[in-house]
């Protein structure tokens, strides 16, 4: 029993739950949702997803090939596979396998 680990998990869970529930305390039917908030939240999804992509790529640096080649190649494979087949699982698996091959066999 790793007490520290359990505490970290508990903290992460509680903060996440709080974040997820807060909007529902203030918004929803019966409460007036400002029009701008509705319109804004229609624009948000692709913007947030773009942000998350950058978040995942944030550790990339160009000072050594190992720090950017595997990531960018695998990202290209992921997007390319998806444009080709539009199958989520294939795109994720393909990109991940390529990445693992690159970082385990070539850019060790």
């Amino acid at each position, binding site marked *: 029993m790793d007490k520290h680990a359990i505490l970290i998990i508990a903290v*992460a869970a509680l903060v*996440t739950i709080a974040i997820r529930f807060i*909007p*529902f305390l203030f918004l929803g039917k019966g409460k007036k949702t400002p029009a701008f908030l509705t319109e804004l939240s229609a*624009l948000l999804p692709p913007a947030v997803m*773009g942000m998350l*992509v950058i978040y995942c790529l944030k550790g990339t640096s160009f000072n050594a090939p190992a720090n950017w080649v595997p990531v960018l190649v695998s990202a290209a494979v992921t*997007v390319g596979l998806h444009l080709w087949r539009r199958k989520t699982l294939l795109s994720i698996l393909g990109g991940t396998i390529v990445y693992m091959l690159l970082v385990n066999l070539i850019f060790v």
Partner: protein
Amino acid sequence: MAGYLALGAGFGIVLQSKGYGVLYALAMSLFIYAGSMQFVAVNLITGGASLITAALTTLMVNARHLLYGISMANRYSETGKVKPYLIFALTDETYSIVVSDEKMERKDFLTVSLLDHLYWVAGSVIGSLIGGLIPWDFKGVDFALTALFLTVFTEQVLNTKDYLPAVIGVAASVISLLIFGADDFLIPAMILISLSLMVLNLLRRRARHG
């Protein structure tokens, strides 16, 4: 949804490789239920981070869930007894499914939420067991998260004619990244994105109403 099976397995494997087994995978995937945050949490656990650090990091990494809630507040408002679970289960993947289909109703929300959660937990447990059986650190398996976000993003861009929000999201994030650095750019990025989209919306409203 099946992407969660693969990603969950990736998480289970990574967690196992750091010495934390099935019960931890089960607990994290049941109660935190946030892919990227769970990966980050592995680092927090192995790095001996303080609880304050854990709380602030969770806030930053998961702040986007505020936006999901804002987005779905109306459509989730009359879901009755299952509403707390639906809110709890509003993850990236579930959100990307429910937000794009205007025709979804309560039973659909529940089905998607439950299945995503199930796939995630199952994947985590399976990955944890696999990781325990195979003496290899599966280096690079956490790329699955990057791949997931890239895939969802690509799908969004393909399904729309309005490219500006996507462009704004990427541009604002890169700018924030360059200014604030990898560790601190998320909150500035979210602020910049929100402001930019508000301005965009304002300009479009003016254009519409003449």
